[in-house]
């Protein structure tokens, strides 16, 4: 076996979620060979990965939402890795943004961080565990309500 390209593309959690859900549907339809010993590894890994991703905000995303998010992100000048992390985690506080965006103090002003937070929380749907209308709890005392 030969590895041609160990990093040919980055995948968002949503894409993997979609892929695994489709795979699960397909295997359910063709039924019988699911339990053969060879398939046990695939079953285990898809079950565990699906369980993990289902608890993240990616669960409620769709291709249109992702496209809209990436278009909105164009103005903020972030790297691909940073945009991917924002998409996967849906940060709700300025502290989280500072973790995901490198050197955010130098690259983004406070208003830009606020604008970024607003874009993220308004375009990306909330995860299953957080209430949808929660206000961001950063210490900046923002008076704009969470849309």
């Amino acid at each position, binding site marked *: 076996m030969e590895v*041609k390209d160990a990093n040919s593309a980055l995948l968002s959690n949503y894409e993997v979620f979609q892929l695994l859900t489709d795979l699960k549907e397909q295997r359910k339809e063709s039924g019988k060979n699911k339990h053969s010993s060879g398939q046990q590894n695939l079953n285990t890994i898809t079950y565990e990965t699906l369980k993990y991703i289902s608890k993240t905000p990616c669960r409620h995303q769709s291709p249109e939402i992702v496209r809209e998010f990436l278009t909105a992100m164009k103005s903020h000048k972030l790297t691909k*890795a940073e945009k991917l992390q924002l998409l996967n985690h849906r940060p709700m506080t300025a502290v989280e943004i500072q973790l995901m965006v*490198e050197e955010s103090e130098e690259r983004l002003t406070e208003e830009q961080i606020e604008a970024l937070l607003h874009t993220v929380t308004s375009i990306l749907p909330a995860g299953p565990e957080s209430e949808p209308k929660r206000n961001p709890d950063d210490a900046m005392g923002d008076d704009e309500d969470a849309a």
Partner: protein
Amino acid sequence: MFVLVEMVDTVRIPPWQFERKLNDSIAEELNKKLANKVVYNVGLCICLFDITKLEDAYVFPGDGASHTKVHFRYVVFHPFLDEILIGKIKGCSPEGVHVSLGFFDDILIPPESLQQPAKFDEAEQVWVWEYETEEGAHDLYMDTGEEIRFRVVDESFVDTSPTGPSSAEATSSSEELPRKEAPYTLMGSISEPGLGLLSWWTSS
């Protein structure tokens, strides 16, 4: 967190599966070979993404099975350096905090990368962050089962291919099983604001 890896391999399809569609048999064989396995210097393989090219299938003398060279792409778990991940604390030991993602367990946060100052509580076998405020020190425990946000700072791949018979003679008979090493481990860090237990940073 996940990357697409392009690979090439020769897949053997035994004759009793010739009635099935070639693509399905090949997908099944590839998944059987790679799913939930770690490939050295690549990552933990999750599942097949797609088959990009199938070359001609050959049948070799003496073996009735067909051999097909397949170019395919596989979904692999391989977080990039400095990526932020959220996992669950599996347990604590003097070596550090062990975190699990459910499908991947070998993540360790060594003591020097914890929020400082930190101490290990021997009685409860748990790491504690001694958080100082004006009121005094709060002891924040890192309990098992808690969700934790951490940054990936290092990864290490260990080649676990079987070694030849010469090394088997060298190990003494008193140790029956050599220590099982995880083929792929991640080192995490929570020494920045925002990292650590999720409950530390939310004001709910």
